[in-house]
């Protein structure tokens, strides 16, 4: 058979799509590719586009099941008594979760345990988890817990390390708890000396920039908060007519995303959320300076910022609307997907640093860790109210096992939880990619995690306050509903509200 060049390309693309969508076996795929005269190495196979969704650049690669044989054997054995059960949990649509959702059929094949993942926005995850623990309903076997909720939900989960030790029959060989990155464990799932769950994903603030736009205007990659402001103002002034802004923000009122931006602004100016006296300290000089810096940025950002969470912010970047973005490193792979308008144009740098100095950990309350890179990681945890804890435990181990986590990173390009994944050759070789599956940013992410990761305070009422009081009042300020644009007034009111909540819980 011979094709005209155009037909051949279409044939290849169609076949590849079908394969990536799982509608063709690998053998057929290779056969058809052979007909089209295309030779293959595993590397090339990874280049083919997937379902056209940003984080699925390399589903073809994922089809290669590289589960180590002893793990597979273990799962088959351990899963036997639980075959046929269904476990469920609810989670945010973060890239690792989406990838896991696609891979989970492998787990089901090995153990016979079905897994249902309900994917909803983060605030709904919180609402459902809250309802579940309040009534001890056991609707969910596993909780996806954002790091801000760790202490709130600490009474409701099993310590995985303990569970592993006390249930040797269900302990996966080679699981290796020490392989998890220590800062991640501390920041995401440790509370009161115990592990609340297993670390699962790590969105963390880094600085991302459009190298083409910066080059065009002769701007250097900003290093400090002041540089950032200058760069943003310059770009917005120059490019506003083209609907391009210096930066975009995730400033939706009443949403946790706004609280994240705000806390980073506060830390970046040498402030903190709580002082050592356990009172709210966002209204001190440094805190107010941070908020004012943020207000200024908002003037140079697309109007949609005030109704955007991180996903709206991601879309601004994907649509080419912004040039600089200090936000979740998880954005990066999606911006570099094969069908992205801005593929290969974004680069990542370390998060902004200075010119202020960080407040020391001794001067803050509730275990807060001021830093330059706000982390928003999550863990997955075993619920104490689950009706199928053993089956769920098997799934948890599988999902956080070395191989699965590495493959998730391969597919989605986001930061792994395990040190072994960072150094896995498959990941290292992707550093030169421009498009889907690139890992060129992972070094920066790892550096940020290991050196400048910042964490929010650990206290039981934090989940409520970070999702309700703080971002609502901030929203009122930023949309001009109240406070007349005065950051100080807003922060004073927040101080009043937060201190009241802390007092009500007898924590202050």
């Amino acid at each position, binding site marked *: 058979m011979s094709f005209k060049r155009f037909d051949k390309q279409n044939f290849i693309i169609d076949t590849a799509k079908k394969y990536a969508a799982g509608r063709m076996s690998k053998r057929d795929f290779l056969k058809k590719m052979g007909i089209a005269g295309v030779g293959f190495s595993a590397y090339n196979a990874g280049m083919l586009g997937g379902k056209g969704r940003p984080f699925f650049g390399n589903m073809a690669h994922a089809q290669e099941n590289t589960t180590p044989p002893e793990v597979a054997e273990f799962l088959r054995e351990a899963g036997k008594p639980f075959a046929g059960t269904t476990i469920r949990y609810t989670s945010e649509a973060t890239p690792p979760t989406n990838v896991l959702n696609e891979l989970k059929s492998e787990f089901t094949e090995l153990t016979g345990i079905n897994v249902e993942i309900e994917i909803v926005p983060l*605030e709904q995850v919180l609402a459902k988890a809250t309802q579940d623990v*309040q009534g001890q309903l056991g609707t969910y076997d596993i909780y996806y817990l954002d790091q801000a909720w760790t202490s709130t939900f600490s009474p409701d989960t099993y310590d995985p390390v303990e569970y592993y030790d006390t249930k040797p029959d269900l302990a996966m060989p080679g699981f290796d708890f020490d392989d998890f990155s220590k800062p991640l464990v501390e920041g995401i799932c440790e509370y009161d000396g115990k592990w609340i769950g297993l670390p699962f994903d790590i969105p963390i603030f880094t600085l991302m920039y459009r190298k083409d736009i910066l080059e065009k205007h002769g701007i250097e990659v900003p290093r400090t908060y002041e540089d950032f402001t200058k760069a943003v103002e310059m770009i917005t002034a120059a490019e506003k007519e083209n609907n391009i802004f210096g930066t975009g923000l995730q400033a939706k*009122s009443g949403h946790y995303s706004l609280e994240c931006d705000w806390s980073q602004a506060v830390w970046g100016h040498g402030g903190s959320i709580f002082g050592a006296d356990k009172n709210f300290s966002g209204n001190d000089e440094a805190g107010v300076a941070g908020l004012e810096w943020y207000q200024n940025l908002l003037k140079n950002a697309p109007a949609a910022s005030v109704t955007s969470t991180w996903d709206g912010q991601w879309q601004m970047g994907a649509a080419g609307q912004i040039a600089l973005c200090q936000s979740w490193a998880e954005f990066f792979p999606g911006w570099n997907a094969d069908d992205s308008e801005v593929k290969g144009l974004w680069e990542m740098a370390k998060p902004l640093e200075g010119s202020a100095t960080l407040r020391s950990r001794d001067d803050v309350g509730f275990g807060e860790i001021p830093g330059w890179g706000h982390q928003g990681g999550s863990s997955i945890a075993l619920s104490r109210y689950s009706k199928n804890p053993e089956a769920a435990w098997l799934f948890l181990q599988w999902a956080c096992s070395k191989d699965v986590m590495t493959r998730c990173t391969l597919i989605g390009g986001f930061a792994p939880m395990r040190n072994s994944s960072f150094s896995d050759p498959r990941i290292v070789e992707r550093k030169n990619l421009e498009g889907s599956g690139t890992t060129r940013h992972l070094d920066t992410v790892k550096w940020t995690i290991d050196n400048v990761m910042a964490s929010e305070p650990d206290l039981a009422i934090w989940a*409520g306050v970070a*999702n309700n009081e703080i971002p609502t009042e901030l929203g009122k300020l930023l*949309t*001009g509903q109240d406070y007349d644009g005065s950051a100080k007034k807003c922060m004073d009111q927040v101080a009043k509200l937060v201190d009241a909540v802390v007092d009500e*819980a*007898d924590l202050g």
Partner: protein
Amino acid sequence: MKKRSVLPRWLTSEHPLPWLFPVTALLIVFGLYPVLYSLWLSFFKRNPATRKEKFMPSWNWEKLLSDDRVWDAVQITFTYALLALSIQLIVGLAIALLLDTDRKGFGILRALMTLPLVVPPAVTGMMFLLMYDSSFGVISNSLYALNLLSPSAPILGTGSTALWGVIIADVWQWTPFMVLIMLAGLRALPREPFEAASIDGASGLQSFIYLTLPMMSKIIALAVLIRGIDLFRIFDYVKVMTDSGPGTATETLTAYAGTVYFKTANFPYASTVALATLILVLVTASIFIKVFKVRF
């Protein structure tokens, strides 16, 4: 011939008890009891850290009265209700007058007019979300073209316009309700007074003001009552379109109760806010019924 009954009097079908029993039972168990339970819950102070609750009857109620957000919510609820109600009343009456004729074709128009009533309010919220979108929404774009709105101030994202955005959705959905009721009222009006008035030389407008309106007053009062109460209870539009935002510009009392419930899990306080809504509704309704002597 009447058979002698062997059942006690209160169990026969002559006594209302067996007839009313199912309804009453259901309403008591799932209607009255929850309200009392809510009240009971509101007397406890909950510590979110320890998850323990202590009996402190006045804690939540004091908190309610000193909670700025509650007062803002009450204000927004009233503003919303009054604005929406007035518009629906006036526009509803106007449209009813327009469609109140036996001419051909108007029957179809009247039937079409009732369609917005069956759209699930949550879906209505979606429809308007789509049309208000700042980039590609048809309403937004039309307003840009007319220079009435700027792309930097999305309708639902700007404090001053967000509430209007929600009110418009409500008006769209429920004006037909008013239209229907007004139509029924207009059709029931007797002809004679109007004939007499026109013989006496009264203009259309005068007939309207001095005859139509007073004769329709009972109906108007009823429509206002039903719609008004429903306006105090709205939840769907706010939740779907703005989620109380931006800031708290569209936070009605019911929306705030929902927020307290979902975001803080402080069930006693959430119950308190919810009960406040109930109290507000009942008080307003009672006053209205007494003043305007509405009968069922």
